[in-house]
């Protein structure tokens, strides 16, 4: 199963429609389950719900073979933590999908680091979907402990004054 998710806050019809068109014309050997948020476009070729509760979201995430989503940090992080191949399409300001283009910047960076596949425009999507199955994401190594230690040291100093 491929899990398609665009978050629950803002519509992202461009991504849902492109995936729908792809499945309509090429077919797919796997089913797609989609969380489409406020998107108004209703896909013809797979089932979609507006929002999933946390438990169901986690279940879809776990059971999926791969994920297609917007370049939202929440989804990217969850996919990486679960070792799932992820294809993102960044939301764009010019299409009114978001207030700035930070999703493009993070997608570019994570693509360079081998964490995700990226379709910057709808025309890129079909090829990237074909690559997704065999894509092995590079595991992300973050340093939350080191950052927390730096902050703790700073706070301890303030508290000891």
């Amino acid at each position, binding site marked *: 199963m491929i899990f398609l998710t665009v978050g629950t806050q803002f519509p992202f019809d461009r991504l849902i429609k492109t995936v729908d068109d792809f499945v309509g014309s090429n077919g797919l050997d796997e089913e797609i389950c989609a969380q489409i948020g406020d998107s108004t476009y209703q896909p013809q070729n797979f089932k979609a719900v507006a929002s999933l509760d946390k438990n169901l979201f986690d279940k879809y995430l776990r059971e999926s073979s791969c994920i297609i989503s917007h370049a939202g940090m929440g989804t990217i992080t969850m996919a990486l933590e679960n070792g799932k191949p992820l294809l993102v399409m960044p939301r764009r300001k010019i299409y009114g999908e978001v207030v700035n283009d*930070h999703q493009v910047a*993070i997608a570019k960076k994570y693509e360079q680091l081998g964490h995700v596949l990226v379709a910057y425009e709808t025309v890129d999507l079909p090829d990237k979907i074909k690559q997704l199955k065999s894509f092995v994401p590079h595991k992300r190594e*973050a340093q*939350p402990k080191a950052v*927390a230690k730096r*902050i703790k040291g*700073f706070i301890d100093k303030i*508290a000891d004054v």
Partner: protein
Amino acid sequence: MLNRIKICLTASAGGHSSQLLKLADSWVGRETFFVTTTEVVRERLSVFGKVYVVGECNREHPLRVIRVLVRCIKVVFGERPDVIISTGAAAGCMVCFLGKLLGAKVIWIDSITNVEKMSLSGRMVRHIADLFLVQWPELVERYKNVEYVGAVI
């Protein structure tokens, strides 16, 4: 025994607060309260003390900004924190400025999504922050008085 200082944790719901929660080791054992933007996360954050929900806003909706600002003023002047830790965005930025007015120390961790340049909130808070951390080493070259220790997520 730790000295009694009160820490205000503040982050918008979603990616911003999940980044802040990764840093929970830094305030363990201290008195904290949380300022966030939507009710959905209230329960999850309640382990960090009292949770205040001030609403979502961005610069495209000036009226909402004012409403959120008024709520932030009430919270910050009521609680009078000694330290503020924030990962953004707009509401976190307001809390930092208000806290600074009352003499609080400000710690800002710029979001992982700010790769090439810092967020508007981050660029503003940089001028008043006592500790300013970024999550990409490239940003240290671009901005003064910012520090890179590592990425949070």
